[in-house]
């Protein structure tokens, strides 16, 4: 038989392990002036090494997105079995008195950079932190002056966030470098459900100055940044839940919650129970796909 192994015997009876393909997307990072990074995205589908779930009750953690604050903003990790996808990095930085990691722009995909004030550029958030192969995300875009950079996209094909523009302004001193916000990096597409869907887009950077446009969110649920308050389409967006998108650049845009999908032979489905009820199953061909929108359990 395929699809399971017999692992030991105890007072509670045996647990037949379940080998499953996985798609694990963490929560996106919150957006500051720059966009938040998409959640880290790792998958075995198609053709990769499956995970083995071998406990009676296997905890599946779905990362939650948070809003950026002075000392908080990175997305929550998503976990299934031995595989962890890291949350997206927060857009921008913040006070240096805060704990480095949780304030960090680094993450599954990196958040856009910060200038910490005009004329003081600093590095962007790095993606694929901690490092895995294939990578779980790309880096964010720079914020060279006022316009924010886009957050990086998650997954092996995630694109780097684009830097905010810094267009020369000889007629408008001292602002020698205004421009559009950088778009968020595109996320990565996957067809574990039987049809393609893109996850973990980076958030777009904000523009702030009249006459310039905010960066769009990257494909895969990245939130759009905000532009000038009196201009059209100035509203920024949270990252999309269930896709792990990064929050759009502005103030207070939350990263989208992550998602976990597990794909296993439908022949195994009768001995699999998922909980709570807000998580769902569906079939595609000979396989069942369990989708975890919230933290729960897969019991064998």
């Amino acid at each position, binding site marked *: 038989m395929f699809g399971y192994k017999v692992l030991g015997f105890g007072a509670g009876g045996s647990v037949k392990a379940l080998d499953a393909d996985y798609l694990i997307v963490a929560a996106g990072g919150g957006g*500051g*002036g*720059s966009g938040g990074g998409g959640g880290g995205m790792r998958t075995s589908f198609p053709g990769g090494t499956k995970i083995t779930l071998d406990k009676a*009750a296997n*905890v599946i*953690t*779905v990362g*939650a*997105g*948070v*809003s950026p*604050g*002075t*000392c*908080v*903003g*990175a997305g*929550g990790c998503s976990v299934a079995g031995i595989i962890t996808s890291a949350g997206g990095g927060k857009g*921008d*930085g*913040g*006070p240096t*008195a*805060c*704990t480095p990691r*949780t*304030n960090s722009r680094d993450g599954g995909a990196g958040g856009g950079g*910060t*200038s*910490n*004030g*005009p*004329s*003081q550029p600093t590095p962007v958030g790095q993606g694929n932190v901690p490092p895995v192969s294939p990578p779980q995300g790309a880096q964010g875009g720079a*914020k060279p002056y*006022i316009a924010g950079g886009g957050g990086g996209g998650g997954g092996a094909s995630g694109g780097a966030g684009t830097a905010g523009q810094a267009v020369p302004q000889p007629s*408008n001193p*001292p*602002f020698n470098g205004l421009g559009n916000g950088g778009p968020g990096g595109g996320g990565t597409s996957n067809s574990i459900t039987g049809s393609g869907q893109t996850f973990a887009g980076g958030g777009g950077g*904000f523009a*702030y*100055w*009249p006459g310039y446009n905010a960066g769009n969110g990257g494909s895969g649920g990245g939130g759009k940044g*905000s532009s*000038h*308050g*009196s201009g059209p389409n100035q509203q920024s967006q949270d990252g999309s839940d269930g896709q792990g998108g990064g929050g759009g650049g*502005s*103030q*207070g845009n*939350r990263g989208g*919650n992550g998602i976990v999908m597990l794909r296993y032979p439908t022949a195994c489905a009768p001995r699999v129970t998922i909980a*709570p*009820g*807000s*998580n769902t199953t569906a079939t595609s061909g000979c396989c069942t796909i369990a989708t975890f929108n*919230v*933290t*729960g*359990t897969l019991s064998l």
Partner: protein
Amino acid sequence: MANNRWARINEADKVIQIVEVGDDISNPASWLQSIYKTSNTFVQVPGNSAVVGPTFSYGIVGGPNVFAELQPYSTWTSSTTDNVLTWVPPVAVPTKITNEQDPDPSGVDYDLFVWDNDNIRWLNGLGQYWDADNSNWVDI
């Protein structure tokens, strides 16, 4: 089906994780302790606020049931709403970038300015500090 946000609190009374739980779970705190096999406590985040996240403390600063953000600077003071404590600078964030440039009066961007904690003032990176009383920038 609505979700609620729960904070996982470690032995040091720090938030280490935010978990969204479906409202079909009858006793989320116990259920979360059970599935994670932990003695950490789980507390529902007031108002399901997305502001609360890892590094917040619980019950240490501001009161027994208060989620408190790390204090970013020693001079910033606390502000508590619905049991969520955040920090406010002693000088309000500037509302414009220079005296001549006021690109977006409807918004404020913290990232445009640097807090000078030694001198309790905002800097704009152009050799000026913010005079909050007169709402203008002054050369240092």
